[in-house]
């Protein structure tokens, strides 16, 4: 097999894995043409978070932070163990964000300013590439202290989050406004074409309902920045920042596969350097760096003299002008310890800011089945799969509701959507167990099991129609899904402005029955700031965030 064939195989592999990843994100939704095999428990037909479970960084960091390797995360060994022998093949062949960066870097680059000598220059190994190792060890330090910060920069959750909560909703909104604009022109054929275009999108990319997500501006900016940086330096993200790349770089320390340069036939044309993705010094006269190489094989394919070869057990022989490659990572022990300690120190700092639970936002309502907040922050990789799969668009990335530490972790905003009582999809798709999987019985409860509670509802008597305005309503009671209803009505005779007697039914909440699903808040007609609302108190996952002395009465 020639090297060009292998390189073509790599290209196919990149496209295939990218498409699989995107397809899985697209399938992380409750589709309309769902076949009801067992209607009592609705489950997705595919293991949509499987791609995230192949992520060695997520596996390592959740292991450090939580002490356990959750379910499918064992799959990550399928990536990690071959890396020990081969090096960072994942970055060059599989990583969907890496492929996206690859394509963004090469897209029309021959005509851009970055070519020739300048491109060669930027493709040499630079000290800035050490940053990713500092990021990695910083995240590891934080994880040891129980705070999983790696998810912010881990490429797989980052891409899932960006596509799921920013790109796809934006595409949906854009296509809707395009259809509306085409309709408003009043030109028949144009409207027809727009409608056909929308139908195609609807069948392929779009979810059943357009979704909105709180605080996605930051997510979108980070994603666009990562893509844009490729226009200046090839795969800048992968070279300089990616903690997963750094982890795989560290794990290629004992690789038996690598690049060998033949000094004799090399004419120093530097074509290898022009084609290099990882900036790992494939050219003569510099030490090739195993930990930076993506194994894309571009250099070997570009070499006209055949002086570059990837092979098992590459020679370690050095000459005066041609140092052998090194598997060592270019960071000093001192810097490793420094960044590790930085990560260790940042967690107490995060948590010293406010008394950890006492001053947490009352509106930080976690998805049903979430584990206690401290453990939750040690597991959530912020992939956004729960937000995407939620049929009611109830789950949203936080901004600072969970503190800076909890940026982009999921929270429920009942005003936008409530927690569907019989739905357990978010726990099904969570790849790390931050949201544990609930059975229907554990979600809604039965004679022996208390229901899973996420919050408690409160009536704002100064805004509620029967309480404040002598008007009938009861919508919250109508929507309350528990049996018997947690919201109950008391009939009262009140007086309107003219002094006439009006009989109204005033809502009250029974905290022993309320599960905090937020259906009442969602349905309340006082639209901007609801007259009935939920706060996190009473959530099943917390021992202390409680009102009642006697909890979990069945």
């Amino acid at each position, binding site marked *: 097999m020639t090297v060009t064939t292998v390189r073509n195989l790599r290209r196919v592999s990149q496209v295939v894995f990218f498409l699989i990843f995107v397809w899985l994100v697209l399938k992380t939704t409750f589709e309309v043409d769902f076949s009801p095999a067992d209607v*009592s428990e609705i489950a997705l037909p595919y293991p949509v978070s499987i791609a995230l479970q192949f992520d060695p960084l997520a596996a390592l960091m959740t292991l450090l932070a939580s002490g356990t390797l959750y379910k499918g995360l064992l799959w990550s060994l399928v990536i990690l163990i071959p890396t020990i022998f081969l090096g960072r093949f994942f970055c060059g062949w599989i990583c969907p964000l890496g492929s996206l960066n690859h394509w963004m870097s090469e897209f029309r680059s021959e005509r851009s300013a970055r070519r020739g000598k300048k491109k060669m220059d930027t493709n040499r190994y630079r000290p800035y590439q050490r940053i990713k190792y500092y990021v990695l060890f910083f995240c590891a330090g934080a994880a040891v202290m129980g705070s999983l910060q790696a998810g912010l920069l881990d490429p797989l959750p980052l891409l899932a989050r960006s596509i799921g909560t920013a790109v796809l909703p934006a595409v949906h909104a854009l296509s809707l406004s395009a259809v509306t604009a085409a309709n408003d022109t009043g030109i028949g054929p144009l409207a027809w074409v727009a409608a056909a275009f929308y139908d195609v999108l609807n069948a392929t990319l779009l979810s059943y309902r357009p979704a909105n997500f709180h605080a996605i501006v930051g997510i979108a900016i980070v994603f666009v920045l990562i893509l844009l940086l490729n226009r200046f330096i090839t795969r800048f993200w992968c070279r300089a920042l990616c903690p997963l790349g750094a982890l795989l770089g560290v794990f290629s320390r004992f690789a038996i596969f690598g690049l060998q340069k033949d000094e004799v036939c090399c004419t120093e044309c530097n074509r290898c350097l022009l084609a290099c993705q990882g900036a790992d010094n494939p050219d003569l006269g510099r030490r090739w760096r195993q930990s930076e190489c993506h194994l894309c094989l571009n250099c070997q394919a570009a070499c006209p003299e055949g002086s570059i070869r990837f092979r098992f057990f590459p020679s370690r022989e050095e000459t005066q002008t041609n140092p052998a490659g090194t598997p060592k990572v270019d960071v000093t022990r001192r810097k490793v310890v420094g960044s590790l300690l930085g990560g260790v120190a940042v967690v107490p700092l995060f948590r010293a800011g406010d008394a950890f639970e006492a001053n947490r936002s009352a509106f930080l309502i976690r998805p049903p089945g979430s584990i206690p907040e401290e453990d939750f922050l040690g597991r959530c990789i912020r992939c956004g799969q729960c937000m995407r799969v939620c049929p009611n668009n109830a789950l949203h990335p936080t901004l600072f509701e969970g503190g800076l530490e909890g940026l982009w972790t999921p929270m429920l905003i009942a005003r936008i959507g409530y927690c569907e009582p019989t739905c357990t999809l978010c726990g099904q798709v969570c790849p790390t167990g931050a949201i544990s999987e609930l059975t229907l019985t554990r979600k809604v409860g039965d004679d022996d099991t208390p229901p899973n509670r996420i919050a408690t509802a409160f009536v704002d008597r100064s805004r509620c129609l029967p309480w404040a305005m002598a008007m009938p309503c009861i919508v919250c009671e109508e929507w309350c899904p528990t*049996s018997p209803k947690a919201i109950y009505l008391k009939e009262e005779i009140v007086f309107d402005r003219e002094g006439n007697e009006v009989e109204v039914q005033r809502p009250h909440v029974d905290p022993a029955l309320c599960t905090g699903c937020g259906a009442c808040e969602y349905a309340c007609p006082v639209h901007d700031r609801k007259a009935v609302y939920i706060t996190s108190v009473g959530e099943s996952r917390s021992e202390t965030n409680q009102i009642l002395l006697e909890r979990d009465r069945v």
Partner: protein
Amino acid sequence: MERREFLRRTGPAVAVAAATGATGLLFHNRQTARRRTVISKITSFEIPVDPTLPGLSLARNPDPVRALNTALDAIGGITRFVHAGERVTLKPNVGWDRTPAQGANTHPALVAEMTRLCLDAGAIEVTVTDVSCNDPRRSFLRSGVREAAERAGARVILPVDSDYVDVRLGGALLTTWPVLKHFVETDRLINMPIVKQHSLSRCTIAMKNFFGILGGRRNQLHQDIDQSIVDLAAFVRPTLTVVDATRVLLRGGPQGGSLDDVSIEDTVMCATDQVAADARGAEFLGLQARQVGHIVLADRSGLGTMHYRAAGYSETT
């Protein structure tokens, strides 16, 4: 500088300045509010009154399909209501993410049987849809209605935002509201409610079921629920009302959840008079029609009669 060159060099600037000014003037104080296309209903779904037939028929049978057929035959049979070549829309109550046994949604077997009857009568298309309260995907799935109706040959629509049209309802309270287009753009409309308790309107049966044709913020309708129900019923006027009283939700309505709140009645009613259907249906909940505000108001407005026994009533058990 020559005149010619002066003109050549100032010309473009003047042209752009003129265009800028003209654009400003053109758009100055322009009304840019989005046009709302409001449609008024033109089709009537009702069929002519036949004094020889009862306005309301009731049948009891543990098999809901046989109960439906018995009740329907007593009121003239399907051929009285659906004719060859017509498009029919069925409006079951699929409001909630509940299973059939919980009695919050219309029985799927009834929807399937009605679909089959309509198709046998020559209908070219039977559409089954509802504007659910809970997520429509879950509601149509767990209610069993989607599967049953599709198997019987119906087209099941789960509404999306673009499916609504603004309709002039012409009510005393409800003037213009977004209505799911499938309830307007059809030839025959068959209302298929279920009998449930409701804390504000006391019962939700036939007329109340039409809340489910509306989009928009319909939770505001509760502020004058009786008038809202009557406005809607006066607007819709279905071809036929088929009331599912096979299971009746006595408490915890309209979505229920506990089987303890469900009473098995094994009854199906067919009606051309929806007020009569509501009046009889309310009795399953231990209510007299005169205790229910919207039934009284509908009777008074001439929509039908709540004294159903006087106006033609048949009961088969």
